[in-house]
């Protein structure tokens, strides 16, 4: 049996060893940080909309841009994924907890100070780091080049160090747990896709973060010990600074060697959680389970050898550039396989349009729109034009913003019953869906268009350039408006959580008639997850539409006997299909 159930509030909810509690802690922290990141986004949009208002100084604007990126990438999406990973992995593989519960707790409590440091860095002289979330030296290394490169950047590096530490601890836990703690009969080929996603993402992260660590250390030395890894002599204020003769490009290589796998670390788990959710609401087996996993393998391998496509215009050797381009666009192939499998999972479906499914479907569309944008940036020639324009901004927001967040929302609505034993409210959920999916996709598609117009990112006042006059400037307005709509839409989400926690309808063990292991335990899952005996797995995770007339499904631990779910009755159908939130949103 598992470690004794803790009694005191502290050991139960604060310094808890229980993976479920830790997972929820991660998610809540991610939500709090998301409010910061989103607030920064609104400030950025407002400034871009009304540069003449003089809301704040350019250096402050740069800090907001930088911290928005850092917070959203590392402290919202990464953290939400850690949250779901912690919550789901043991449940889905039939384990009582992570392999190293203490390490797990440690990793969360390393993340918290990281968040605090990042937020604190706004309030030091010179303000928060202002060199962009990519932190290219010399801008990030030499204090005189931009005010934010003072203490702010030191704190940024410290925060990232703690983040990497925490991520590595969590990652080691994910890896060891998935590989070694699966319950009897649960072979790798019977693993739910969500768990596969966490596994692949973890391996990627563990391999990709160390080079970033090395880059951060060297940057730190350049800043504080006067080494010259990255910095070169320069003239500031007509005064010569003898900083040595480093190679700034070195940092970019190290950074993007992390940076590119990192975006897959962000996008793969939500995508695969989506693929995990869809079969439940189509009542059909996931299409191409093995193909998806092979595709994942290829993607993760390729992602480690294509970092150079972020550096096409740095004057790299043209033949190397060509190689990076060729390798990069190959990635679209395995991604296309994932896309096709997502679509094909809907083939002849028995659709149940519950809120998680709505988000999942939106993910499919977003992957379509976002994925193909990558071709324009991966092809070296077109990237010459699009590099550092809003096309890039639109593209990566669509992929690691929209896709990930929609996927995470889908997962939240789907597993909320298992977390708290209550179902989320359907109507509020739909309002939230429309107020999230619509603006999120629209905003970033419009940014693609601005990029087509050559609008340059990270500009304090795009009006400086005459070529922006016209559509580039006009497009700012709908984007800004929808950004606000998006932000307000999330309030519905929070209200929904509060309301559902108070008086949501009790969920029961298996509200969605799903087949994977987490649904055989009570909701919320008890300490130790599975009662006296661990389940024994007898089949794959998506055995739906079996039995005569195909209304049955095989729970993974059902020992092969068919469980039957009834199709939604006519009046239910009217109820689920009938609420008008749909039309009002569309």
């Amino acid at each position, binding site marked *: 049996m598992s470690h004794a159930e803790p009694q005191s509030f502290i050991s139960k909810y604060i310094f808890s060893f229980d993976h479920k509690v830790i997972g929820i802690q991660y998610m809540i922290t991610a939500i709090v940080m998301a409010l910061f990141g989103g607030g920064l986004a609104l400030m950025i949009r407002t400034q871009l909309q009304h540069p003449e208002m003089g809301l704040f*100084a350019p250096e402050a604007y740069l800090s907001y841009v930088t911290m928005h990126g850092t917070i959203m990438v590392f402290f919202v999406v990464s953290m939400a994924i850690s949250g779901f990973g912690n919550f789901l992995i043991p449940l889905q593989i039939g384990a009582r907890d992570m392999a190293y519960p203490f390490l797990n707790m440690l990793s969360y409590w390393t993340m918290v100070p990281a968040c605090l440091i990042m937020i604190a860095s706004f309030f030091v002289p010179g303000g928060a780091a202002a060199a962009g979330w990519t932190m290219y030296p*010399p*801008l990030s290394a*030499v204090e005189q*080049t931009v005010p934010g490169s003072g203490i702010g950047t030191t704190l940024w590096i410290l925060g990232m160090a703690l983040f990497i530490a925490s991520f590595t601890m969590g990652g080691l836990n994910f890896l060891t747990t998935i590989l070694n703690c699966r319950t009897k009969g649960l072979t790798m080929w019977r693993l739910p896709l969500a768990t596969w996603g966490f596994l692949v993402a973890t391996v990627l992260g563990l391999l990709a973060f160390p080079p970033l660590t090395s880059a951060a250390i060297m940057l730190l030395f350049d800043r504080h010990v006067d080494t010259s890894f990255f910095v*070169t002599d*320069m*003239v*500031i204020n*007509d005064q010569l600074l003898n900083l040595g003769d480093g*190679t*700034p*490009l070195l940092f970019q290589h190290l950074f993007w060697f992390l940076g590119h796998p990192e975006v897959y670390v962000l996008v793969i788990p939500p995508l695969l959680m989506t693929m995990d959710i869809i079969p439940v609401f189509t009542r059909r087996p996931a*299409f191409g389970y093995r193909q998806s996993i092979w595709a994942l393998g290829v993607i993760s391998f390729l992602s480690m050898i294509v970092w150079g496509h972020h550096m096409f*215009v*740095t*004057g790299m050797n*043209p033949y190397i550039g*060509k190689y990076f381009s*060729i390798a990069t*666009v190959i990635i679209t*192939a*395995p991604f*296309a*396989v994932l896309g096709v499998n997502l*679509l094909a999972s*809907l083939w*002849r*479906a*028995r*659709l149940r*349009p519950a809120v998680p499914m*709505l988000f999942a479907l939106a993910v499919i569309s977003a992957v*379509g*729109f976002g994925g193909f944008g990558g071709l*324009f940036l991966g*092809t*070296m*020639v*077109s990237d*010459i*034009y699009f*590099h*550092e324009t809003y096309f890039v901004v639109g593209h990566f927001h669509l992929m690691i913003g929209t896709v990930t967040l929609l996927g995470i929302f889908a997962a939240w609505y789907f597993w909320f019953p298992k977390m708290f034993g209550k179902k989320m409210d359907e109507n509020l959920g739909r309002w939230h869906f429309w107020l999230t999916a619509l603006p999120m996709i629209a905003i970033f*598609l419009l940014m693609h*268009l601005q990029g*087509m117009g*050559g609008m340059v990112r990270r*500009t*304090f006042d795009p009006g400086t350039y005459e070529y922006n006059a016209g559509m580039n400037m006009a497009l700012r307005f709908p984007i800004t408006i929808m950004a606000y709509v998006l932000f307000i839409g999330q309030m519905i989400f929070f209200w929904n959580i509060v309301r559902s926690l108070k008086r949501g309808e009790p969920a029961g063990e298996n509200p969605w008639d799903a087949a994977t292991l987490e649904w055989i335990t009570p909701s919320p899952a008890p300490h130790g997850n599975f009662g006296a005996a661990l389940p024994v797995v007898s089949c794959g995770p998506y055995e739906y*539409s079996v039995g005569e*007339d*195909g209304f049955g499904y095989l729970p993974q631990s059902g020992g092969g006997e068919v469980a039957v779910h009834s199709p*939604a009755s006519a009046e239910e*159908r009217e109820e*689920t*299909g009938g609420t*008008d939130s*749909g039309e009002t949103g*569309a």
Partner: protein
Amino acid sequence: MEKRKPPRIIIALVAFFAIFTILSVIGFAVPWRSEVASEEGQGIDAVITYLLFATGALVIVGHAILIRFLLKGRDDQTTAYVRPPAKVEWMWGVIPVIVMMLLAEAGVLVVGSATWDKLYAETPTNPVVLEVVGKQFEWLIRYPGKDNTYGAYDFKWVNGADNPMGIDEDDDAAMDDIISRGTMYLPRGRTAQIRLRTHDVIHSFFVPDFRVKQDVIPGFPTEIRFTPTVNGVYELVCTELCGLGHYKMRGTVHVVDPEDYEAWLNKRPTFGGED
């Protein structure tokens, strides 16, 4: 069972996907980019256009399938569901790979390659040679002058008002150099071969109308080449975040007839010239 229309939420979703697909197709069909004004730019535009058609088709097809599946997927249908055999799944694992390989690599190798080589691999014939220095937050342009050789420069001589590029006052080769702050003149039809340096951080040389872009890296001189084809005044943009004045780092490129270009050079004061 009688044909029942799908639940309204599904119809709403279908409308959502359909509208977004149509709008984005229209949106990307609009010519957002200004008239291309350089030879290399035409090559770059060709790639962009190719990719727009290729990906556009895929987005439309994908969403069409998505919509069809949504409309047909009834939650009460009793039609027996035959699980697709493994080889069908494998087939659909291979087809997209082949399609994407062909589409994507064609963009890189067939459509793009020539332009890439022209920009980076080949050496231009009879180019206009000039030097551009990026500094926070200005573009400084230097022409080698009559003797066609640059005067020596060193950071220690840099003085924003008198000698922004830090050119050696005692170097004879420097005397006929022509320095311009943010304003660049180029003759139409001749390839401009521009040496790029920076005084401080990373900048990036970008002229939207030419489509060309090149980072300027400290301690790592880079070069950019392009051939303007249309007279006009174009904007020179810094596209790499370079500090609080990044958005102000703007220059202008005037493309004029060769004789006007000579005329402009002649009336510019030289570095050595008495005011």
